[in-house]
C-alpha cells in the first residue's frame, strides 16, 4: 500500500468523521420551524411551552439512555428536584432578582439536580438493568416522599405556591399568552441542545456509544467506563433539573406530581416513541405525544359516533357492527387515553424499532440505498 494512497485515504477519513458534526439542512429547518410556531400559533403557546419542557426532559433521558445505554425510571426525580429548586428560589426571591431571576433559577435548578445526580450516580453503576430500574425508581419515590413530608419548604401535597419571577433578562414579563414563556423555553432548549450535540459528537460522546455497545471491550481498550457514565448521568440529571425548573417557572407552581413516577414513565415512552439516540427523538416524541393527548382530551367521540352511525350504509347496519362501533368510539374519550397510548407502545415495540426517527431513517435508507453508510 503506497504512502500517498494512505494519506489521501486518511485525509478523507478525518473530514468524513468531522462531517458527522456538521449541521444539516433539516436540522436548521427544524429549529426555524420551531421558532416560527411563535407566529403561526399565537394562541397555542402555552401548549407549545409545555411541549418544549417535555422535550427537554426527554432529551435528558436520551443522553443517559440513548447514548450511554442506562435504563432509568428516575429522571422524574431530577425533574421534580429542579422544579422545586427553581420554585423555592423564586418564592423566596419575592419576585426580585437575583433569586427570582428566571435564568438564575434555572442555574440553581440545574446545579441542585446535577449535584444529586452526581451523588446517586454511584448507585446506578452497580448491577443489572433491573437493579438500575429499581434504584432509579426507588430514589425517585424517596424524593417524592421527602417533598411530601417537608411541608414547610415545599408545601407538601398541596404544591408550592407563590412562585414569583422577575422578568426574563429584566425586560420580558411572563404573560398570559405564554409568549415570553415560549421564547424563553425554546431558547433554553436550543442552548442545551447545542451543548448536548457538541458533547455527543465529541470523542467523549463516541466513547459513550462504545460503552453502550460493549462495556467489556470499552474497558479492555482503556475507556474509564464508570467515570464517563457518572459524568453523563450528572449531565442528564442537570438537564432534567433545568427542564423541571422551566416548568415550575412557566406554570408558577411546583407540585408533587412533577416528581411522580408517571412523569418518568411517560417521558421514557415519549423518547422511545420519537426514537432514542438521535437527540431529536425526545423533542419529536414530545410533540407527537402531546398533540395526540390534546386531540384526545378535546375530542367529542359522541358526535363522531353519531356521524358514523348515520353514514353507515344499511347493508352494514346489522349486529354486531353498530355495537362494536359504539364501544370503539366510547373508548375514544379522554378517559381512555391510556388505552391508545398503551396500544401505540405495544405496536411500537413489536413492529417499529427506533421510534418515529427510526422509521424515517429506514424509509430514507430504502429510498436511497446508495447512501446506506453509517451515520455516526
Amino acid at each position, binding site marked *: 500500500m503506497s504512502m500517498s494512497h494512505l494519506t489521501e485515504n486518511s485525509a478523507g477519513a478525518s473530514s468524513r468523521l468531522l462531517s458527522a458534526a456538521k449541521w444539516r439542512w433539516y436540522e436548521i429547518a427544524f429549529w426555524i420551524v420551531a421558532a416560527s410556531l411563535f*407566529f403561526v400559533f*399565537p*394562541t*397555542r*403557546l*402555552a*401548549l407549545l*411551552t*409545555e411541549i418544549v419542557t417535555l422535550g427537554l426532559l426527554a432529551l435528558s433521558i436520551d443522553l443517559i439512555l440513548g447514548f450511554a445505554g442506562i435504563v432509568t425510571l428516575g429522571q422524574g426525580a431530577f425533574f421534580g428536584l429542579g422544579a422545586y429548586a427553581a420554585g423555592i428560589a423564586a418564592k423566596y426571591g419575592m419576585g426580585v432578582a437575583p433569586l427570582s431571576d428566571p435564568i438564575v433559577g434555572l442555574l440553581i435548578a440545574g446545579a441542585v439536580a446535577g449535584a444529586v445526580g452526581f451523588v446517586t450516580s454511584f448507585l446506578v453503576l452497580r448491577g443489572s438493568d433491573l437493579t438500575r430500574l429499581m434504584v432509579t425508581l426507588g430514589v425517585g419515590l424517596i424524593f417524592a*416522599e421527602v417533598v*411530601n413530608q417537608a411541608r414547610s419548604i415545599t408545601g*407538601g*401535597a*398541596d*404544591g408550592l*405556591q407563590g412562585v414569583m419571577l422577575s*422578568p426574563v433578562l429584566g*425586560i*420580558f*414579563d411572563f*404573560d*398570559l*399568552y*405564554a*409568549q*415570553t414563556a415560549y421564547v424563553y423555553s425554546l431558547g433554553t432548549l436550543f442552548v442545551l441542545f447545542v451543548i448536548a450535540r457538541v458533547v455527543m459528537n465529541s470523542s467523549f460522546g463516541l466513547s459513550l456509544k462504545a460503552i453502550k455497545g460493549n462495556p467489556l471491550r470499552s474497558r479492555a481498550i482503556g475507556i474509564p467506563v464508570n467515570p464517563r457514565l457518572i459524568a453523563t448521568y450528572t449531565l442528564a440529571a442537570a438537564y432534567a433539573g433545568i427542564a423541571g425548573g422551566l*416548568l415550575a417557572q412557566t*406554570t*408558577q*407552581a411546583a*407540585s*408533587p*406530581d*412533577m416528581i411522580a413516577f408517571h412523569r418518568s414513565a411517560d417521558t421514557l415512552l415519549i423518547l422511545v416513541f420519537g426514537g432514542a439516540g438521535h437527540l431529536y427523538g425526545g423533542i419529536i416524541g414530545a410533540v407527537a405525544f402531546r398533540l395526540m393527548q390534546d386531540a384526545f*382530551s*378535546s375530542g367529542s367521540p359522541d358526535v363522531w359516533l353519531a356521524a358514523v352511525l348515520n353514514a353507515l350504509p344499511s347493508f352494514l347496519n346489522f349486529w354486531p357492527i353498530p355495537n362494536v362501533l359504539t364501544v370503539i368510539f366510547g373508548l375514544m374519550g*379522554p*378517559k381512555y*387515553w*391510556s388505552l391508545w397510548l398503551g396500544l401505540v407502545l405495544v405496536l411500537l415495540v413489536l413492529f417499529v424499532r427506533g421510534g418515529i426517527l427510526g422509521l424515517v431513517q429506514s424509509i430514507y435508507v430504502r429510498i436511497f440505498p446508495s447512501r446506506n453508510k453509517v451515520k455516526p
Partner: protein
Amino acid sequence: MFHKGFFKGILGAGVALTLATGLPAIAQETVKVGLILPMTGASASTGRQIEAAAKLFIAQNGNKVAGKTIELIVKDDQGTADMSKRLAQELVVNDKVSILGGFGLTPLALAVGPVATQAKVPAIIMAAGTSMIVDQSPFFVRTSFTLPQNTTPIAVWSAKNGIKKVVTLVSDFGPGLDAEKSFKAGFEANGGQVIEQLRAPLANPDFAAFLQKAKDLKPDAVFLFVPSGQGATLMKQVAERGLAQAGIKVIGTGDVTDDDLLNSMGDDLIGMITSHNYSTDHNSPENAAFVAAFNKANPNMRPNFMAAGGYDGMALIYKALEKTGGSTDGVKLVEAMKGLAWTSPRGPISIDPATRDIIQNVYIRKVEKKNGQLYNVEFDTIPNFKDPTHK
C-alpha cells in the same frame, strides 16, 4: 410596557388587537364557560360528577341567559397542576372563555389562581376544599365547601354528645390538615380532648396500621377524613378492625361517606355520624327534583357533594350573568356574584361578599338504610354556617 410593544411589533396586527382590547371580546353572543376537571386518574370520579351536574343544569335551564348562549367546554387535567394551569391559559387565550370553573383538588385550583388574576376571569371552585384558596386570587369564588366549615360542626356535636377523647386520622394533604386543625379547635373549645393526630399518606393502599394505632389508644371516637373516593377502602378496614366492637365510635366529614359510593361500602357503616354540606337524601323539593333528573341522565351515578358543587357553580354563573345583564367583564361578574343567595338542592346558600366563599347549612347526618339503600340521613342543622377560620 416595553415588552408588549416589542411583541406587538413582531406579532402583527391580528394578535396585537386581541392583546390591546383585553380578553373578553366586546360583543360576543356566546359566553364560554371552561371547566377544568380531573376526568382521568385518581380523582376521576370528582370530575365526572361535576361534569354531569353542570351539563344537567344547562339541560334543565336552557343554554340562554341574559340574551347570551352558554357554551360549556370541559378539559381533563388528569389531576396534575401544571396541566390545570396550561389548560386555564389556553381556555382564556384560545377558546376565549369568560368564566373558568371546576378544579378537583387544592393544588389544581391554586395553579389556576395566577391565570385568573392576570386574565381577570372569574374562577368558580366547584370541588377543592382547602380554606385558603380563595385568598390566592380576587377572582376565585367558591360553590363547594371548605374543610373547616364541614368539620367544625361534627367537632362541636361530638363534644356535646358525650365524646371526650378522640383520635383523628386524616389524609396527609391540605384539606386533611385543615380538617385535623378545625376538628381539634372545635372539639377542644367545647371541652373534648384530641389524644393523637394520625396522618396517612395521600396515596396509601392500606390503613390497617393507622387504624390499629387508633384502636390501641382507646378513644371514645375516631375522627376520619379522606378525600372523596378513598372512603370505601378506609371504611372497609374500619369494619374489619372492629372499632365498633371495641366501643369506639366512628365520626367524620361527609367526604368519607360519599353518597356516590355509600351503597357499595356495605352495612358496616350504618350508624356512622358525619357532618357535611350535602346529602343525596336532603329533604327538599329542590333536591328531590335534582336527584331525579340526575339519576335519569346518569343511571349509574348518585349525585354527591361534588355534583352539588358543580350544579350550584353553574347556577351562580347564570345568576351573575343575569345581574350584569350579560356583561362578561370579569370584575363585574365577581362583583355580581358577591352576596348572591338562592335555594340550592342542598338548602339555602349564599356567597360571602367579604371572602367570596360559600355560606351554607351544614348538616349532622347518620348513615341509615332506606328502601334497601344506604343514605346519609340528616338529623341536625347548623344554619348559614361560614368558614370559621376565614375572617
